[in-house]
């Protein structure tokens, strides 16, 4: 089920909403169960067969997490009881760190040899058991993901390069498998590190299946979600949250239906035509690439907005996922603003375990590159995604090297013009990346880039055709005529991303996401805003007034009416 569907808006959401708060009057546990069951129904709407896969994955990971957690807890108790003289242990210190620290350093120095040996043996046995369990559980998750998402890709490549004849058969990619696999791997790793406190199965199921995030994120972290589900007041209707959540949902729906889908009508035929062998000219190629750049942002961020809005109506705050990424002035900044929860996941569960920046500059660059490469593969099973990831890995390396070089030379950040140029360069680099991300193959991406570089001639609007009279000489020189529609939607898109505040900025007073206020303020850097800009932003600050209620209602109606559209025939001549 999609958020932008009649059945979700008119049936599912109202039923689940009223059901949750009604049941919540009597029992918190039952209300949570209702929400978990509704989430499974939401998932099963797409294909009922895959509910068992999702449930299987949940049960398996919960059991693995429980066993790991149990062993880690036992280890901790053993250590505590064996070495109650051990000083300086903090309760929030990760348990396995605590264990290894205890075993390797303090313990051997501060207690008697005989006790130390037996405890040490039992502890290290428990740790290694937990480690094996963790490794097996992560491997099982990755095998599941690998089978459903990457089996075809690997078989095709093996067949191509090694001349084998492997056949995988028809594999349907279960919706959201990347999201529920990653969130659960994070849970397992954190359990192993002793960071998990909450082991309630219903809350765990809810954390994995919670319908607002299940299909397209944000990538949730159990640490910020499970305690929210456990709060007693979560199942009491809170009209502040309902009003803010509803407004954010409406804005998200409008972004998706009115802007992203309109942009797709232009981007899709151009990329499809290129996939079919067409060679666009300069303007068409740029038009397609820019339309897709905007479409992806509006589509994805709209979905996150809708998720945040719906969740808030249920008194659960999701993490922020987009923070005006196209306003970034460098690639590092871009990745702090784009799909923020995935960046966080990749940082915590891939980049840092790989060694992060702890082993010198060269290793740091390698770790960055590997992280982005795998991040690319996570987005899709295809070489174009890997190239996209590699490209961003390369961008990040250049960005870090440039930053270090600037620091060494003692150069400042530069003035407004420098920032503008940096922003434009960053945007251009991102657009080039999206061409690989969207194209069906490497050669199609190269065709697009070739055309964007003007190497395939250029076209003029058809409306000029008559005015220029005989134009055979133009045609001979690689100039043709093509229909240019959609300029308006592209302009609107750019105006929104560059001139308007984002949804979070509009609602920040009401704290719609789970970032704490201090953290969010630093994200927005609102103190450094010039007065005029601040005034401009204040103009868009959401307030629960009657006028705004009607404006939101009208926007809601228009967005709902945008759900059914007529596919019009667009002719791109190349």
């Amino acid at each position, binding site marked *: 089920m999609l958020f932008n569907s009649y059945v979700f808006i008119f049936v599912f959401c109202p039923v689940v909403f009223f059901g949750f708060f009604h049941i919540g009057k009597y029992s918190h546990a039952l209300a949570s169960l209702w929400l978990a069951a509704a989430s499974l129904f939401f998932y099963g709407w797409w294909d009922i067969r895959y509910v068992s896969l999702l449930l299987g994955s949940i049960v398996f990971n919960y059991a693995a997490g429980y066993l790991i957690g149990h062993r880690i807890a036992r280890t901790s108790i053993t250590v505590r009881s064996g070495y109650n003289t051990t000083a300086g242990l903090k309760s929030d210190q990760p348990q396995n760190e605590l264990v290894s620290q205890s075993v390797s350093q303090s313990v051997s120095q501060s207690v008697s040899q005989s006790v130390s040996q037996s405890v040490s043996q039992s502890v290290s046995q428990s740790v290694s058991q937990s480690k094996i369990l963790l490794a097996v559980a992560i491997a099982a998750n990755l095998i599941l993901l690998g089978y459903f998402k990457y089996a075809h890709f690997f078989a095709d490549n093996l067949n191509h390069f090694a001349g084998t004849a492997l056949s995988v058969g028809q594999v349907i990619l279960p919706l959201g498998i990347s999201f529920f696999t990653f969130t659960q791997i994070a849970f397992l790793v954190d359990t192993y590190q002793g960071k998990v406190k909450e082991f309630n199965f219903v809350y765990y199921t809810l954390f994995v299946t919670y319908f607002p995030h299940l299909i397209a994120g944000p990538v949730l972290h159990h640490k910020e979600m499970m305690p929210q589900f456990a709060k007693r007041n979560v199942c009491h209707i809170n009209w502040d949250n309902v009003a803010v959540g509803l407004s954010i949902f*409406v804005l998200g729906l409008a972004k998706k239906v009115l802007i992203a889908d309109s942009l797709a009508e232009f981007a899709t035929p151009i990329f499809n035509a290129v996939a*079919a062998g*067409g060679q666009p000219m300069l303007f068409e190629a740029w038009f397609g690439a820019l339309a897709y750049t905007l479409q992806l942002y509006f589509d994805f961020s709209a979905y996150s907005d809708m998720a945040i809005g719906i969740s808030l109506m249920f008194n659960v705050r999701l993490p922020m996922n987009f923070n005006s990424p196209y306003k970034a002035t460098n690639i590092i900044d871009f990745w702090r603003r784009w799909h923020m929860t995935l960046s966080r996941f990749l940082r915590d569960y891939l980049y840092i375990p790989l060694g992060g920046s702890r082993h010198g500059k060269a290793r740091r660059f390698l770790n960055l590159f590997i992280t982005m490469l795998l991040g690319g593969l996570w987005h899709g099973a295809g070489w174009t995604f890997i190239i996209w990831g590699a490209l961003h890995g390369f961008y990040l390396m250049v960005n870090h090297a440039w930053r270090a070089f600037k620091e060494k030379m003692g150069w400042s950040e530069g003035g407004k013009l420098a920032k503008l140029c940096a922003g434009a360069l960053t945007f251009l680099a991102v657009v080039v990346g999206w061409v690989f991300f969207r194209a069906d193959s490497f050669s199609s991406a190269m065709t697009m880039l070739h055309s964007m570089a003007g190497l395939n001639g250029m076209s003029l609007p058809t409306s000029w055709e008559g005015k220029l009279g005989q134009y055979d000489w133009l045609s001979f020189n690689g100039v043709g005529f093509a229909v240019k529609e959609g300029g308006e939607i592209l302009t609107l898109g750019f105006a929104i991303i560059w001139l308007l505040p984002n949804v979070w900025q509009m609602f920040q007073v009401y704290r719609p996401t789970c970032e704490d206020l201090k953290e969010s303020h630093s994200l927005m850097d609102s103190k450094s805003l010039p007065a005029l800009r601040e005034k401009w932003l204040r103009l868009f600050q959401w307030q629960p007034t*009657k006028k*705004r209620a009607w404006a939101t209602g009208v926007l809601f109606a228009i967005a709902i*009416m945008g759900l059914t559209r*007529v596919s019009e025939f667009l002719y791109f001549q190349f």
Partner: protein
Amino acid sequence: MMKKYSIQVISAAPLIIVLFASINWFVDPYWFYGSPEISRLNKSKPLAGENPRLFEIVNVLRRKPEVLIIGTSREDSGIDPKNEIFRERSVFNAAISSQPFVESKGILESLSKRNGNPKQIILGLLFENANAYGYSLPADYSIENFDQSRPYKLLLSLSTLKASAKTVVKNIIGHSTTTAGDGFRTPDQWTEQLLIGQHKAFKDNERHYLLDNHFPLPKCKNALLLEQDDILSKTPMQELREAIAIAYSMKSDMRIFIGPSHARQWETIQVSRLWSQFEDWKRMVVQMVEAEAKKANTKPFEVWDFSGYNSITNEAVPALTDKTSRMRYYYESSHYTPAAGDLVLDRIFNYHAPDRTVPADFGVLLTSQNIEAHLAHIRAAREQYRQTHHDDIAEIEAMAREVARTKHCQITGIPK
């Protein structure tokens, strides 16, 4: 305050939706709801012509006509449902620009599911549609158009609201529709396109066929069957076979015809070295119609061939400098006028209209018995045409050479 705000949002949205839906129902830009038609307000429906796929598919499935016309834009603007042959029967022309065989099949399938079996089906065939390497659905094709709930969903659609607004504005300024309520494209749609002169219209169309249609990207191939490695989906001819089988199962009388495009159109096939494939295609059509009839245990549908070189298709084309003369039977080399379409109907229904006579050499009923003789006859007529139309042939050959140089991929049929 927050509760009040939320209630206002939730109440405003349905009110606005009901208001917009009422406007859509009243203006009815696609002839879906049978709303009252008021001149200078909503009587003319220009948006139906701008979105033919939506208008024709939804309407043909709603109206369930007794006589159904399907095919491409040639039939859309050439076969008039108001022809006296159909008299008082309900007729709908659901032929649409670039209608692939899968769409024709979809219409038959959907009508069958909705118990709307037509008594009479007229199917116009286009050779280019049979290319297994040219198969792609038109950009405005939408499977949703076959959905029974489509008209109601469109009542609640912003696209329809925009269409309603445009309809009202166009009615106020006196803009007339180029599509009639029965799905027929009126000759008005050609008025503007022919301002460049008919010879230029012929040339533009022929270049388009040479450049894009005969050897479409990405493979620049034309074949009736797919090579082993390329078999991913059904070929257009398989879709056509299934469409014919459905027509037999509907117990309808289907008349199939290969359209009367102009002789110059056939020359683009010849110069692209596709002539033998063109003949194979005709053989295949006759064979599949007869085979499916045998399966259905009934007599085969009639297959008529109006292609080739005859007194209609050989009509002289005005000179390039002459921009005002208009041909009787053609808009350009591929699209024929209703005057030619009427003769097609006269021939296939053996109707004798008081004001026109069908030339004896126009239209041949094909069977597996006479097809070889018929093909040989066309080949001979072609030779004769080439002897008598040097300028036309030279012009088409020059265009073919220019296209072969321009095209991004190597065209297998045309030497550079």
